[in-house]
């Protein structure tokens, strides 16, 4: 029997352990066959055996490690995608309710107008009438508030403080981005100092910010460059620094990058909400975002966080939504 044929008989196994077993079996068969044919066959048999193991081994140990990590990553991804889907769907729901509410609001105002001009024979004064109409107006506004809140429902979750390993959290996000970055030939360099230390913060909110900054950095580099991720804890302050080798930010834009709707991307590619939401989240976490950049030199975004976590007052405070119409108020 030809040793290579022996290998060919090895079916592609599914699990890692059987895979190794079959590789061994195939190798064994190949070697046994070689014994009959002399040294030449031995050579090809060893080759075949090597091949069998070469195929089996990397997948075998990749399988175990990959499974666990992939699941974590997928959970995170599903979570973030779920959130974005919620945003889309909730805007649809909001529309359905807001349209009739808009009309009700108008009618109420019309009623107010009429009531203020008319005289009512059955009423002692129009005060009660006006109060009733006001009440309707208040309820309409209440509905409006609810539906408006709906729009950033996904982002309105309260900060839940946990003890978080700083380096681990950042590394999780880095790995998430790294796969994509690899395809664009962007290397991600890690400079974790004090990465083993823990801070008190809301991991899911902080993850969102870190992920956002990393994605921005990768997008800024576009191709063939480097993104550096660093962590550091000095005193009571934790820092996460994301540096890219992209084209940098124009000085006049530097003032505005945290404004809602400010984006330099073409329509449809970015909402311009990312950084404004990041900033709001950081505020909620009792921290801040610092940015340094000069055109052509890339940009450095630094997240500054209190190691002990934000004061409780900040934690439960829902700052006003970043992107509703009431921007002039």
């Amino acid at each position, binding site marked *: 029997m030809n040793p*290579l044929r022996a290998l060919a008989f090895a079916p592609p196994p599914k699990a890692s352990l059987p895979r190794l077993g079959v590789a061994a079996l195939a190798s064994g068969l190949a070697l046994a066959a070689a014994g009959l044919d002399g040294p030449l066959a031995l050579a090809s048999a060893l080759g075949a055996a090597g091949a069998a193991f070469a195929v089996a081994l990397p997948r075998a140990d990749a399988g175990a490690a990959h499974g666990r990590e992939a699941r974590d990553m*997928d959970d995170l991804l599903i979570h973030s995608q779920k959130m974005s889907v919620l945003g889309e769907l909730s805007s649809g729901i909001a529309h359905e*309710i807001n349209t009739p509410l808009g009309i009700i609001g108008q009618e109420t105002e019309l009623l107010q107008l009429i009531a203020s001009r008319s005289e009512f024979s059955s009423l002692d004064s129009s005060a009660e009438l006006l109060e009733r109409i006001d009440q*309707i107006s208040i309820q309409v506004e209440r509905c409006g508030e609810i539906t408006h809140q709906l729009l950033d429902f996904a982002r309105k979750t309260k900060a839940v403080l946990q003890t978080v390993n700083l380096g681990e959290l950042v590394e999780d996000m880095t790995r998430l981005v790294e796969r994509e970055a690899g395809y664009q030939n962007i290397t991600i360099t890690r400079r974790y100092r004090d990465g083993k230390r823990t801070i008190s913060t809301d991991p899911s909110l902080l993850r969102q910010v870190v992920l956002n900054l990393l994605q921005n950095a990768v997008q800024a580099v576009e191709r063939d460059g480097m993104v550096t991720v660093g962590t550091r804890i000095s005193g009571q302050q934790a820092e996460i620094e994301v540096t890219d080798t992209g084209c940098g930010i124009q000085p006049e834009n530097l003032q505005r990058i945290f404004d809602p709707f400010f984006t330099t991307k073409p329509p449809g590619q970015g909402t311009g909400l990312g950084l404004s939401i990041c900033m709001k989240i950081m505020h909620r976490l009792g921290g801040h975002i610092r940015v340094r950049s000069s055109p052509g030199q890339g940009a450095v975004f630094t997240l500054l966080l209190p190691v002990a976590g934000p004061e409780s007052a900040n934690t439960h405070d829902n700052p006003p939504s970043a992107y509703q119409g009431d921007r002039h108020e």
Partner: protein
Amino acid sequence: MVDKKYSVLRWKIIGGTMAFSLIPLFAIGLFVYNDFQTAYYTKITKNLSTMVGDKQQAVDMFLNERTAQLRTMLYSHSPENLADKTYLQKLFNATQTSAQSFVDMGFINQSGAHVAYVGPFALGEVNYKDADWFQKTLHKGHFISDVFMGFRRFPHFIIAVSRNVNGKTWVLRATVDSDVFDSLVQAVQVGRRGDAFLVNHNNIMQTHSRFQGPILEPVSLPNHRSFKGVRVEQTDIAGRKMFLGTTWLDSLRWRLVILEDPSEELSALWRTTWLLAGACLVGILVITLGAVVMAQAIVRKVMLADREKAVLDASLMQSSKMAALGKLAAGVAHEVNNPLTLIREGAGWLKDMLDDESPETMKNYEEFARSLDMIELHVDRAREVTHRMLGFGRRMEPLHENVDLNVLAEQTIRFLRQEALHRNIHIDTGLSPDLPRVTTDGNQLQQVILNILDNALDAVNQDGQIWVSTATDECGDVLLTIRDDGPGMSTETLNHIFEPFYTTKSVGEGTGLGLSICFSIIEKLGGRIEVQSAPGEGSTFTIRLPRQQA
């Protein structure tokens, strides 16, 4: 990007397999080649060494025999007899009958004068008193000379033995034609380039050689000091690698040299080498082919697994999305319902009040009443939305409930009515009035209907018609048919529409997962989705459900 990922994986597998296969293959090939070479060299060396040893013994034996013969002659006959020429002639003739090795023979007295001589030459008067060989013979008792030309004008050598009788020393000398050696030695001249010869300690040729020069000429050979046994080595002779086997004779200071051309001897090795190289080449080809095929197969498996995973993820996403949406919708609906109720009450109160007024006395009575009507109308409209949301978000876990497919269809159509209106698409319903209830999961079913309806709207795009109908068939299965007058689908598309990731929409508009999820949901509910379509004739999707869920 995705393709690149798989192509990287493919090359990794190919590279890994080739590396792990070819390196051992080459290693073994090299090892085998080396082993073969060593074995062949050893074999050749051994053969050569045996041959040299045998020949050396033959030559030595020949010389010893001759010496012994002479000695026997000298000792068994008295000097007086030997001095007699006829007696000596008789003896000479007797030796020649067994082997014609001697050319002539002479009996010499102490002072070097020939006492008797037999042979073809006239050497009777020659005195050997000063000859080196004579002195050595007297001194050592016997002597064998190197080959020389001497008086006789042909290559020969001398064997001489001496005997002391009553204080007088006698010497018996015989001449041997060196041709004897030629026949002895040349028998082992092997192949086209093999050679065998004898040289003395000064590297002067003692026999005829094939290639190394004539007799009595110096030979360019590595000069060996005397040693015991046989030596085999490789040496460069006239620019040619040769095997050289050599040994010193026991009887005199001559060397036997046998030369062999390895290129002739090793031709078997070359053949093996070529065979090995050929086998390696075939091995490389087979391994390369195997690696490519294997990589292809593995990558395909991985791709399939990834796809399966993506489908799983997508359906996971879908269900978790629906659950989250349900929760959200229910929450919002509750929150909005309270103020809506208050608005409704307020409007009711105002209406009651208005009843007490007369249209004649009150200014703007009409407007006031109309506004109140409008408020009530739109509160109802908003309420309908919240009720729908509540219904939608109520339960996400799979259920076995009694579902009225007609109601479900109507509810679902209401979701999309607005959208359809915007696009000027008519949705007609033909719902069977006596449709039996179906035991199934209403929410999941609604999701499917919604999805198919949504697809139908997308297919029609603008200004068209969608028909939704329900019916029962002869087996008691319940059918829901959604037909559109859109552009329809080609057979090619039809074959793929339930596959995950298949989409005809442009990138970013559809994941291509909708119908595959629909398919799996309906399958889980024990039903089937059928589709009929042809280009230009619209499409018909039929959901077929058993009355009792499997």
